[in-house]
């Protein structure tokens, strides 16, 4: 197991992350324009000032030097300084925004699994019932509705018309941080982000349970007279839940990506809104920092999913 994890990290993870950072840095720097382009529009600005600013940011050097400098710093856990006038460390900016994004993502994962699994189970137990068809249809709706449209509808209904929930944001200055407050701010964004997961998990749960429900050992369980409830919840469910664990690893990229849009709709102060601000300012160190952060999180998510799969299912051995 340890050998497998180490192999995943050193033979797969590190090369993939290096390749990713190289490609991203390349694309960012070969694009037309640069972070100092806007200075050219300033009247009476000597071109030497622009050159000076470029040198200050290290932009006068060739791409490969810039990249290796950046990489060298990252290996020493230094993400560099932001390009904006405050020149704050990128790590600090990320640290400030990270909790909000993690909170939002976790909340939507909890919603996705907490709602998706039970309705998937019921859907499989009552296969071909009206409830089953309704859930199947709902699952299609859930994966088809764009998060931003669903978010706007919820804003319209709950925040603007019924006026029962805040129209975005996350705790105003001086507002007491109560549990009810957390719920009210989190509810719409996490539901918006989590809807696709609810739908996806429900669909997989249904399919997975239907797959095991007709296997021999379940027929045995029924034959020895176990009530159907026990057959399903005790014998079938344990095996059917396994594939759902790996689903977590697959869904994490989608959740983080979705968070960018959802944060933008609800003015959620997370990494996504920082990312959008950074790309618009061409703030290279911040862009690289955030994108790498997400890539690392996604990679860790896939490892955690693999490990939990192996822990839960003794038939799986990674060698």
């Amino acid at each position, binding site marked *: 197991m340890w050998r497998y994890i180490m192999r995943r990290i050193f033979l*797969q993870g590190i*090369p*993939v*992350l290096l*390749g*990713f950072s190289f*490609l*991203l840095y390349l*694309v*960012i720097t070969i*694009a*037309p*324009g640069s972070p100092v382009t806007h200075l050219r529009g300033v009247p009476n600005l000597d071109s030497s000032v622009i050159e000076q600013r470029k040198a200050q940011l290290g932009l006068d050097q060739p791409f490969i030097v810039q990249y290796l400098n950046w990489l060298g710093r990252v290996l020493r856990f230094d993400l560099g300084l932001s390009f904006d006038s405050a020149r704050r460390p990128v790590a600090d900016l990320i640290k400030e925004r990270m909790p909000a994004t993690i909170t939002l993502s976790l909340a939507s994962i909890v919603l996705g699994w907490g709602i998706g699994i039970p309705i998937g189970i019921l859907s499989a137990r009552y296969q071909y019932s009206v409830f089953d068809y309704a859930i199947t*249809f709902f699952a*299609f*709706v859930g*994966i*088809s*509705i*764009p*998060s*931003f*449209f669903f978010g*706007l*509808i919820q*804003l*319209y209904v709950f925040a*603007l*018309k019924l006026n029962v929930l805040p*129209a975005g944001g996350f705790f105003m200055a001086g507002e007491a941080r109560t549990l009810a407050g957390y719920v009210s701010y989190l509810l719409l964004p996490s539901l918006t982000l989590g809807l696709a997961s609810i739908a996806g998990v429900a669909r997989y749960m249904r399919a997975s349970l239907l797959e095991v429900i007709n296997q021999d050992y379940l027929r045995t369980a029924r034959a020895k007279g176990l009530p159907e409830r026990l057959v399903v919840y005790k014998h079938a469910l344990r095996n059917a839940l396994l594939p759902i664990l790996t689903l977590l690893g697959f869904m994490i*990229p989608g959740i*983080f*990506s*979705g968070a*960018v*849009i959802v944060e*933008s*709709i609800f003015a959620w102060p997370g990494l*996504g809104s920082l*990312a*959008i601000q950074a*790309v*618009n300012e*061409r703030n290279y160190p911040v*862009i690289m920092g*955030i*994108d790498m952060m*997400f*890539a690392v999180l*996604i*990679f860790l998510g896939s490892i955690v999913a693999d490990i939990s799969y192996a822990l839960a299912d003794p038939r799986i051995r990674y060698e």
Partner: protein
Amino acid sequence: MDAALHQEQLTTGKKVWRRFCRNRLALAGLVVLVLFVLSAIFAPWLTDYDPNRNNLRDRNKPPSREHPLGTDDMGRDILARTLYGGRISLTVGLVAVGISMSIGLILGSLAGFFGGAVDTVIMRLADIFYSFPFLIVAITIAAIFGPSIYNTMVILGILSWPGPARLLRAEFLKLKTTDFVTAAEGIGASPARIMFRHVLPNALSPLLVSATLEVASAILSEAGLSFLGLGVPPPAPSWGNMLNRARPLHILANMPWMWLPPGTAIFVVVLAINFVGDGLRDAFDPRQDLS
């Protein structure tokens, strides 16, 4: 012999079509999709308005006789913009998938056919692309190269090639060991002939299913980018940038006619494509035999 072969293919196609038709949701999806495509193609005949012409006297008008879906904050007709927006959104979706499928088809075939070092290099590259936080990278590149229709198509296309490449590689590995490929090798067929004539046609049905579903996600991605102001730039209408324009809270609260039509259009089209894709997958599945 040749005629018999032809007849066999025809019945397979018919079988698939019959199985597809049994799935009522898939069929409904197909009908809706065709309607959307037709309305996008024939947009100029369906509305008299120019989707990009401002009309400052008719700003923010609710639905009426002259403007069935109302007008936006520049006095542009929402129906016209939704119809023409469909042209752009559907085109971007199709072209993006065309790009990713072409790259995936070539690289996946090469990796699956030649194996060895070629396979390793291509699949490691696919791993790298797979580890991308998709939308975040798309946003980064779109912002840096500047929002445009072409950039959107290319970005979405280039970022999604690993999916079809992996699929095709797996199909190649599976088909490579079949008897008919061994036979073709035995009579001295060239690698290119084996690849394009014998293996590829057999790998097309899973590819078609995945392409269908990819179109749905490409349309969603384009809309997402445009919603953030990084996809199709105004004044050209796309469903995503129409939603972007309706984001200010006073429009959201008081002028739902500005954001409901484009949002509903994206939702319904993507739903229809997902139904069609799901129906195709079932229809191609040989286990679902129909007697």
